[in-house]
Every structure is written in structure tokens, then in C-alpha cells.
């Protein structure tokens, strides 16, 4: 699913176009800079406390790889464990199938309203829209997701999805779209949170059906795990009669013991806390405590495609901490919407094109939404080498376009340069031409305007005038 902002051709714009718009949004820039810098510092502080952090990262990467590299048996084991504990397991090949399953499960209860815990997987498949089409209203209960929902908007960050909104906007949204809001409500964050609490409390106390995702699903025991801060997760996971959890197949962990690694890596990497306020784990159904009807919907929707890619499959290790977003100099300035996907930032740039393919202009642009600086790889708790996968996916994009009848200007230029560089004579001749033309284009010792594709450079930067003698020309004469 992509945001409703359309590009010039009516389709979602490619990253560079969307970024241009986002870069001009000064409030977004300020909010993002403040948010990312703050979380960066918090993360650094709590990670510094942990002497064995690198050992934990090694273990985290291995735990995920251990599940991914035997994912078929892990999923079968997970299914057995969940069923044994009183839950029901469903399998969904794609978004449409997952939506159909969830819709029919809700319909079977006779309810027309459900409460939801934040779940990126359900956003990915467009579940709320599918439910609405079936006459079922889904109420988001995460404060940020609520803000996004009320604003008919799109999340811009994995962890703080409404970071693009300031308090005045949130107040306006609440006043416009939230029933029962006190007339004297101000934009003080504590008051806004209290208003959301009151509004949602009503929903929690009467909800019969809830929908969640999960951070982890443990094959050995059939245990699902949800980490959160606000308590809405606990509300949705324990109050209703029926719980439906939509979980990507890559969320599997092999064993209960593996959770001891992930519960140390995730809170410190995401919110920069030693531990998030609430973590809930449950296995199937517990008589007398919580939902008596539990359904696990396992979602593929492109994940097996990523799994098949020897280099790209490491992206499936992701535990959705958002540490990479918070250190990315590109994300910091463009925000999440520019990536046109539920998964933004560095992880989005490598996950989205693998889940969706690289056919569309948007998806083909995502692997290029990076300078390859590597700050993300430094902080990824499960050691995903994001720059390596970005370069790998760029290769896929180029190969997918290589045999077009009309090559792009970039393809022509790159092939021409490679051909030139392939032979000393051609190279030296091109070198002489470059020096000559560079000097002709110069004014006052600088090149201020370049033609064609290179114009984008000189739109904002000068280039120094090439000296009369190239290095090798000087060497020859010395």
C-alpha cells in the first residue's frame, strides 16, 4: 500500500521527487531532526551501558538466521505449538488472502467494530481499508496510529508514526475528529494524551474483538510477543473475547531462550530504554484469562521472494527497532512519506523493493535513496549489512532495465563511460576532452553549469576548473 500522494503520472512519485516536496516542509524537518537526534543520544547512552553489546548483536543475527534458514520447519513447529495451546493458525499467501481471512474471522463473531494494536503488517496489507469495505470499523489504539488515522494520513516513522505532526495540529485533529473531546482541551502533550486515553478507554472496555501483530513468534512454544509503551497493547491482548494476530512469517524465533537476546536488543535500539514499559507474551489460550478465541494469521506477501535472495534475505532479520531510521542522514531530512511505503528509511529501502519487486519507478528508486554512508549498519542490532544489500538491489534494478528497447540516458552514459575506461587510449583521449571542455565551460576558474544529466550537480554546486595538465600528463613530462 502506498500513500495517496500521486506523482506526475498519477502513480506514487519516485523517491527523489517525493523527497523534494518533503525537504521543503520546514516543520517536518524540524520535528524529524529533533526526534532523530534525541533518540540517537538515548540509544547511544543505553547501549554504552552494555559491555556485551557486540556479543548480543552476534547472537541476535544468528538467532534470526537460524529461524530464516530453516523457516519451513520453524513455521510448522510454530503452528503445532500454537494449535496445541488452543489457538488456530491460518496461512495467507498475499494481502488479499490475509484480509479475507481476517474479515471472515471478524464476521464470524458478529461484531462490526474491532480495536487494533499497532501492526505494520496490517498496514502493509491495507487491512483497515479492507475491513471498512466489509462494514467493519477498526479503531487504532496506539496514540500515534490514532493520530494518523484521525488525520486520514500515513505513518512517517516506524516507532513514532506521527512525528510529522506538531501539537497544534494534533489538537485540531482531536477537536475535529474525536468524539467527546473536552471543549477546553489545550495542545499540551499531557492533556492530549489524557484526551486520547479517555476516548480509547471506552472502546477498550467494550471491545469484543481485537487485532494485533507481533514482534516475535516462538516456534518451540507457540508464544507470541508484543512490546509497547502505552498499555493499549495489553488492553487489546487481554480484554476482548477474540484475538486475531497477523504476523509476517519472518517474525519466527526458534526457541524461548532466544527471547533473552531480543528483549535486550530491541528496547535499547528502538526507544533508547533499558526496557520498554510493557511486554506481553501469550501462548494460545489461557482459560479464565484473556481472549478464549485466538487466531494466528501467518503472512507471506513477498517475504518468500526476499528469502530466495541470497544477499537480500538478511533484510528479513529486521526486528523493526527503527535504529537505522534514527541515524540515517537521508531519512532525517526527508521523513518516511518520501519512501512511499509502510517501511521507510534504510530498512524500507531494502525491504520494500524485495517485497514488492523493482518494477515501479518508486520501488526502483528506493535502493538509490542512500549515500551508502553505513551509519545504519553500525547500529543495526541484528547486523544487517544494509549498504551491501542496497548495492545488490541497485544491481537488480539495472539488470531489470538493461534490455529495454530504448535505454535510459543514464544507462547510455554509464555504458559509454565503462567502454571508455576499458582501454588506455580511449581513456586518455576522453581525459584530454574532459580537460578541454571543462576549461571551456569554466568562468572565473569554476564550472558553473554542466549540460544534460550532470546539470543536477551544477544546479547547486560549482566544480573546479580542470587544470591544464592532467596528472598523467604532468607525470609524463617530469
Amino acid at each position, binding site marked *: 500500500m502506498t500513500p495517496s500522494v500521486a506523482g506526475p503520472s498519477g502513480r506514487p512519485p519516485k523517491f*527523489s521527487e517525493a*523527497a*523534494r516536496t518533503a*525537504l521543503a516542509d520546514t516543520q517536518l524537518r524540524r520535528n524529524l531532526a529533533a526526534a532523530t537526534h534525541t533518540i540517537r543520544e538515548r540509544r547511544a547512552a543505553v547501549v554504552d551501558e552494555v559491555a556485551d553489546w557486540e556479543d548480543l548483536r552476534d547472537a541476535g543475527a544468528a538467532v534470526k538466521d537460524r529461524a530464516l534458514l530453516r523457516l519451513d520447519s520453524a513455521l510448522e513447529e510454530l503452528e503445532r505449538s500454537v494449535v496445541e495451546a488452543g489457538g488456530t493458525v491460518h496461512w495467507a499467501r498475499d494481502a488479499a488472502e490475509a484480509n479475507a481471512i481476517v474479515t471472515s474471522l471478524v464476521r464470524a463473531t458478529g461484531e462490526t467494530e474491532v480495536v487494533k494494536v499497532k501492526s505494520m503488517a496490517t498496514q502493509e496489507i491495507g487491512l483497515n481499508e479492507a475491513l471498512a469495505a466489509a462494514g467493519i470499523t477498526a479503531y487504532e489504539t496506539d496514540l500515534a496510529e490514532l493520530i494518523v488515522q484521525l488525520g486520514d494520513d500515513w505513518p512517517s516513522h516506524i516507532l513514532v508514526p506521527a512525528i510529522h505532526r506538531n501539537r497544534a495540529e494534533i489538537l485540531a485533529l482531536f477537536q475535529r475528529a474525536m468524539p467527546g473531546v473536552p471543549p477546553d482541551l489545550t495542545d499540551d502533550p499531557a492533556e492530549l494524551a489524557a484526551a486520547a486515553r479517555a476516548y480509547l478507554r471506552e472502546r477498550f472496555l467494550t471491545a469484543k474483538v481485537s487485532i494485533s501483530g507481533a514482534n516475535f513468534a516462538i516456534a518451540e512454544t507457540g508464544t507470541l510477543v508484543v512490546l509497547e509503551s502505552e498499555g493499549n497493547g495489553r488492553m487489546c491482548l487481554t480484554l476482548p473475547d477474540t484475538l486475531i494476530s497477523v504476523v509476517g512469517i519472518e517474525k519466527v524465533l526458534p526457541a524461548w531462550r532466544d527471547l533473552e537476546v531480543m528483549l535486550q536488543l530491541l528496547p535499547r535500539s528502538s526507544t533508547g530504554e533499558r526496557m520498554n514499559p510493557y511486554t506481553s507474551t501469550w501462548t494460545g489460550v489461557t482459560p479464565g484469562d484473556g481472549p478464549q478465541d485466538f487466531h494466528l494469521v501467518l503472512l507471506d506477501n513477498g517475504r518468500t521472494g526476499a528469502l530466495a535472495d541470497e544477499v537480500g534475505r538478511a533484510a528479513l532479520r529486521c526486528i523493526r527497532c527503527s535504529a537505522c531510521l534514527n541515524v540515517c*542522514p*537521508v531519512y532525517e*531530512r*526527508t521523513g518516511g512519506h518520501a519512501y512511499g511505503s509502510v517501511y521507510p528509511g534504510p530498512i524500507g529501502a531494502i525491504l520494500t523493493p524485495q517485497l514488492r519487486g523493482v518494477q515501479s519507478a518508486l520501488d526502483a528508486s528506493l*535502493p*538509490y*535513496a*542512500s*549515500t*551508502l*554512508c*553505513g*551509519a545504519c*549498519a*553500525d547500529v543495526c542490532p541484528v547486523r544487517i549489512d544494509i549498504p551491501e544489500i542496497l*548495492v545488490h*538491489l*541497485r*544491481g*537488480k534494478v*539495472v*539488470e531489470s532495465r538493461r534490455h529495454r528497447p530504448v535505454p535510459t540516458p543514464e544507462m547510455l552514459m*554509464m*555504458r559509454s*563511460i*565503462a567502454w571508455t*575506461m*576499458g*582501454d*588506455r587510449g580511449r*581513456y*586518455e583521449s576522453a*581525459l584530454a576532452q*574532459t*580537460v578541454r571542455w*571543462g576549461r571551456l565551460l569554466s568562468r572565473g576558474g*569554476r564550472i558553473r553549469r554542466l549540460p544534460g*544529466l*550532470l546539470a*543536477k*550537480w551544477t*544546479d*547547486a*554546486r*560549482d*566544480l*573546479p576548473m*580542470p*587544470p591544464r*595538465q*592532467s*596528472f*598523467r*600528463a*604532468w*607525470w609524463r613530462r617530469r
Partner: protein
Amino acid sequence: MRIALFITCFNDALFPATGKATVTLLERLGCEVRFDPGQTCCGQMHWNTGYHREAAALAARFGEVFAGADAVVTPSASCAAMVRAAYPKLGVEPPEVYELTEFLVDVLDVADVGAYFPHRVTYHPTCHSMRTLGLAGRPERLLRAVRGLELVPLPAAEECCGFGGTFAIKNSDTSVAMVADKIRHVRETAADVLCAVDNSCLAHIGGAISRLRAGVRVLHLAEILAAT
């Protein structure tokens, strides 16, 4: 000590002064420098932009040109990183390539290269030099030993300048937004010279400084170390 100089296509055309400085410096330190004019390009741009077939051909050619060479030394950290990190993926056995400061500190074991450069200088650690090569404090060590040079730390030094190769063209708006902050930090130091071990990043930062008339000179580290 015999050295095969790998100048890089970028420096050959646009920054020959860096190459000359590298030769001057290494000869001053007692090395014999050879330059094989068969060299063209290491293929970094093609590799990073996704033209892997072309990059493989350029890498194979590079491997042939430098086969059996003595220590290969280059004043470009990103090209050294390309050879070291990417060539194995392209099925090419990389020759032993040293980035200049690696060579000076690790092989020649020098910190004071006899340079004199009486200016206030700040140093930007480029991403490849920092993360792929792990240059750590080598460039700063060399700078601190330069007579007359006042080295001031750059705030938020580890943040990317926004060059990113073809990113500067394909995502020019974001690239410029990033360099705006890099320039801001440079100006905070009140340095009159910004130096680095990559002319590609310096061309981007320096090009923006020039367009903005921001009044700071950019210079490759080799040119500072060669100055007497």
C-alpha cells in the same frame, strides 16, 4: 620502498595537484614511486550505481594492470575501499591497496612527515574512510604533527556530507540539504581550510561552499602533508 601509485580517474582529471603532492610526499619520505599509465578506473561508480557487469570488467582490468605491483598506494579512501571490499564480490583478487594515511602510519611508521602548513584546519572523516577502511585516528595524527597547523575538531564530523557518488545527481535535493549542514558545522570551526582523504566528497562540499561564497578552502590531506 617501491610504490605503485593508483591516482584514480577522478584525481587524474580534476585534482592532479593531489597526485603531485602524493608523489612529492612519498619521495620526500624516501620511497620510489612508479606510475603505470595503463591504469584507468577502479569501477567504483559503476559498482555503487548497480552496473555490476561493467564494474566487473573494470575490476578485472584493474587487477591485470596492478598484478605483481609493489605496494599500491592511493590518495582516495573510497577507491581503496572499493578495491578491498568489493573486488572479492566481483571475483577479482584485489592487489594490496593502501590508502595514503594507512601507508604512512602503518607501513612507513611515520607521524611527522616534515610538513609546514600555518593554517587553521578542520578534518572531515569521509564515510568510506571511517567505516569501510577504519582509518580511525591516522589522518588526525598526521595533521597534528604538521608545523604551524592548528587542528580544530569538526562538530558532527561523522555525519555524511551527502555526496554518495551518483546520489549527488540522482537525489540532488537531499544531497544539497545534507551538505548545507556539513557547511554549517565547518563554519562553526572558523577554520580556513577543510581537508579530507577523498577529493570526491571535497568536490561536493567545496563546490557547494564555492557556490555559496562561504569562504572556506577545501584541500586534500596529501596537499597539506606535502606542503613545506
